[in-house]
């Protein structure tokens, strides 16, 4: 019963929680947080059940309101959407558990709005992943975007300005997407993705379809912060509250990347993609490679931890773009695996910056000293593990995503992509070791004061924040060891047959 309804249940659960939170929160503030945690747990449960069913029995198709396409809207849960959806729900659940103390500390009095908006954001993102209808996707995109702007705006004093920039850029991206959808609808007469995929060979040479596809790719690339359309991202992530960033950074851009996957590999005709649209793929790849290098260099220049991580996100989106551009099984596996790994790593790293803000009151890199390893040993350890994974050292998870991407690049003799991957690894070392060196080695104050073990007060983050952080850090090792299982059982079934 549940398994066949899972595609609609997941976004509706989030939506229902989003409505319930303000009503419950008016009575009791703590209940708002509980509702958010329970809502995301329920959605996670549905998505895991849905994923199991999908893997066992193939795709689940759900016709909303009982109308068949092209009149009605279809929700589709196939291995790809089920996997991404489970990832979204999992990350959300952990962030919601983590959020309680951090939200209370960083954005007091705004908890209810925060949780409600988080659930709305997730409702939008889950809908984007589940829907099999291009216009319905736009509607969900709007919900996710609107909630995202607001989550970014609830932050420090400059957050409103960065949210406004995000809003302008995001609206431009969404408009491009909508225009593209309109052109494709004019040419094919349907909005259903599966129908369009079947009609594509007949209309794909018309300029309207090609312009439409380019507009969709452009809008999506803006949303996923592909270089050079990333300018909104660093500010937005830096000034938002830590919990909001930990929620948006791991999954927000990933869902846009998912849309790119969906359109390019499941809607466009494969032959067309390999011949005439090859330039489009190449451009995505080169922009991704440029973003990898640029994001990493900018990350080295930052003095604030969250801002550094935000620039690192620009680079990580580049990896996914490179994977898409390769258009091969190895590239596909690499991009999806990297999306999973990066979600876990980034979430963990933003948690760490939240822990530091709670206990130190800031997360400025130049002010960090080796007192940190004594006052917050577990947080520091988690940072080290996550940093190693970001750099991509085996056996942590980060290594394997890059490994598949590198194999894919070698397979097609794409030396530019390969060198971008390798150079970025060195740059990653530079910006993470810079933090780790201060965290573990830099003596506190040189002048005569004896900072022995006694003077440093142990002030680790509270358990509700520390446990999710450590859980994510350890799961990086687990994901690393389990990568072969994940690839064969979860990722290989989602690769389209022609690839």
């Amino acid at each position: 019963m549940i398994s066949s309804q899972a595609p609609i249940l997941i976004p509706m659960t989030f939506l229902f929680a989003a409505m319930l939170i303000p009503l419950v929160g008016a009575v009791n503030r703590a209940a708002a947080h509980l509702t958010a945690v329970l809502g995301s747990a329920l959605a996670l449960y549905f998505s895991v059940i849905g994923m199991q069913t999908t893997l066992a029995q193939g795709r689940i198709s759900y016709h909303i309101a009982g109308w068949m396409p092209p009149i009605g809207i279809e929700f589709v849960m196939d291995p790809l959407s089920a996997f991404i959806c489970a990832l979204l729900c999992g990350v959300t659940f952990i962030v919601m558990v983590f959020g309680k103390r951090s939200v209370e500390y960083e954005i007091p009095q705004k908890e209810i709005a925060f949780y409600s908006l988080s659930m709305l954001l997730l409702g939008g993102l889950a809908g984007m992943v589940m829907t099999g209808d291009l216009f319905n996707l736009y509607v969900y995109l709007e919900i996710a975007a609107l909630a995202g702007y607001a989550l970014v705006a609830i932050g420090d004093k400059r957050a409103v300005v960065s949210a406004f920039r995000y809003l302008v850029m995001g609206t431009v991206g969404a408009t491009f997407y909508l225009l593209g959808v309109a052109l494709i609808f004019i040419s094919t007469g349907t909005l259903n993705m599966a129908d369009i995929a079947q009609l594509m060979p007949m209309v794909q040479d018309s300029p309207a379809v090609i312009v439409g596809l380019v507009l969709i790719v452009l809008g999506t690339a803006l949303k996923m912060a592909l270089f050079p359309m990333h300018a909104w991202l660093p500010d937005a992530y830096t000034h938002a509250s830590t919990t909001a960033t930990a929620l948006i950074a791991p999954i927000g851009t990933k869902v846009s990347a998912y849309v790119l996957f969906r359109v390019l590999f499941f809607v466009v005709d494969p032959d067309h993609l390999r011949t005439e649209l090859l330039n489009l793929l190449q451009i995505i790849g080169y922009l991704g490679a440029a973003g990898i290098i640029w994001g990493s260099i900018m990350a080295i220049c930052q003095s604030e931890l969250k801002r550094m991580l935000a620039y690192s996100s620009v680079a990580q989106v580049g990896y996914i773009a490179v994977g898409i551009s390769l258009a091969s099984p190895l590239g596909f596996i690499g991009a999806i695996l990297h999306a999973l790994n990066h979600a876990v790593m980034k979430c963990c790293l933003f948690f760490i910056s939240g822990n530091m803000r709670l206990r130190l009151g800031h997360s400025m890199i130049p002010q960090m000293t080796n007192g940190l390893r004594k006052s917050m040993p577990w947080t520091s350890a988690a940072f080290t593990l996550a940093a190693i994974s970001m750099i991509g050292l085996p056996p942590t998870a980060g290594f394997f995503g890059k490994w598949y991407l590198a194999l894919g690049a070698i397979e097609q003799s794409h030396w530019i992509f390969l060198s971008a991957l390798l150079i970025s690894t060195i740059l990653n070392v530079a910006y993470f070791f810079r933090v780790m060196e201060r965290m573990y080695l830099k003596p506190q104050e040189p002048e005569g004061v004896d900072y022995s073990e006694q003077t440093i007060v142990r002030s680790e983050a509270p358990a509700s924040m520390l446990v999710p952080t450590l859980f994510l850090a350890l799961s990086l090792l687990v994901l690393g060891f389990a990568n072969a299982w994940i690839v064969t059982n979860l990722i290989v079934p989602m690769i389209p047959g022609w690839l």
Partner: protein
Amino acid sequence: MAVFDLILGLLLVILVRKCLSITDMFGAVISFMAFGLLMAVAWVRLEAPDIALAEAAIGSGLTGALLFSTLGRLPHSETRQPLVPRGSGSGPGYWLVTGFWWAAAMVLIATFVFSFQELQTPGLGGPLQERLAESGVLNPVTAVLLNFRSLDTLMEIAVLLAAVVVAWSMGYVDWPARQTIPSPLLPGVVRLLTPVFLLVAFSLLWRGSHAPGGAFPGGAVLAASGILLLLSGMTVQISPRGMSWLRWVLSAGLLVFVLAGVSLMAAGFGFLVYPEQWAGNLILLIEASAGVSIGAMLLALYVGGEPDMAPSQPNNPVSRPQ
């Protein structure tokens, strides 16, 4: 009529240009509202009366009111200041860049027009007409919005609710709102107009099943009458309990929609699958609750933030007329 269409199209372009280039904000808002009105006429000419209604009510009326309320909150000097600092639009570099973008845009538009000439009209109208009898309503637009693609509408209501939550999360506004226009005429006019507005709003809501109308235009008219009441200085005093009631009113549209969907699902029909004999009534129920909610949400957006509960007497910003 071709001449009329041509003039209409030209006027639209000129108004957009004026909107973007005008130097004071007040004038920009006025041209934007004029643009919305002409756009509504253009929709009528395109034989899309539903969109025309929505454009006139929301695009021109409510958006205009929102923009004016924003202008009212800015310091007075700022609203009258030129938007573009003088001197930026000169020099060979400026003209080179502007010329490049204009030329590029023109080439793009020309390619669009020439390459899209062979396109035929998109086709879902046929299959839609065939199924219209099963949808429970006679108006094809309402059938699409509330039956065939009901999920899109549900989500659009969610977008609107999200916008209200966003506005409230940004902060509080003083209440009673100090946006009264000191005009001796207004209270009298409002007294006369409010019943008419209400009548129009509910007639639009009711007509939705068989003619252009429905929840969005109806809600917009409802909100417009609320805004007029606010402007004329009439506010309703309601106890703190009113605030929690207000939350229910705001979310009623979405709540009824989602509950209808989920309960139909639990009854074994599937999400939002209306049984054919109840379809008409269910659509009416959903549309009515959505209309009232949309009116309240648009009004809440006009008021701005969450009405300040803290001092003396908190009031209800939805001055639903009594």
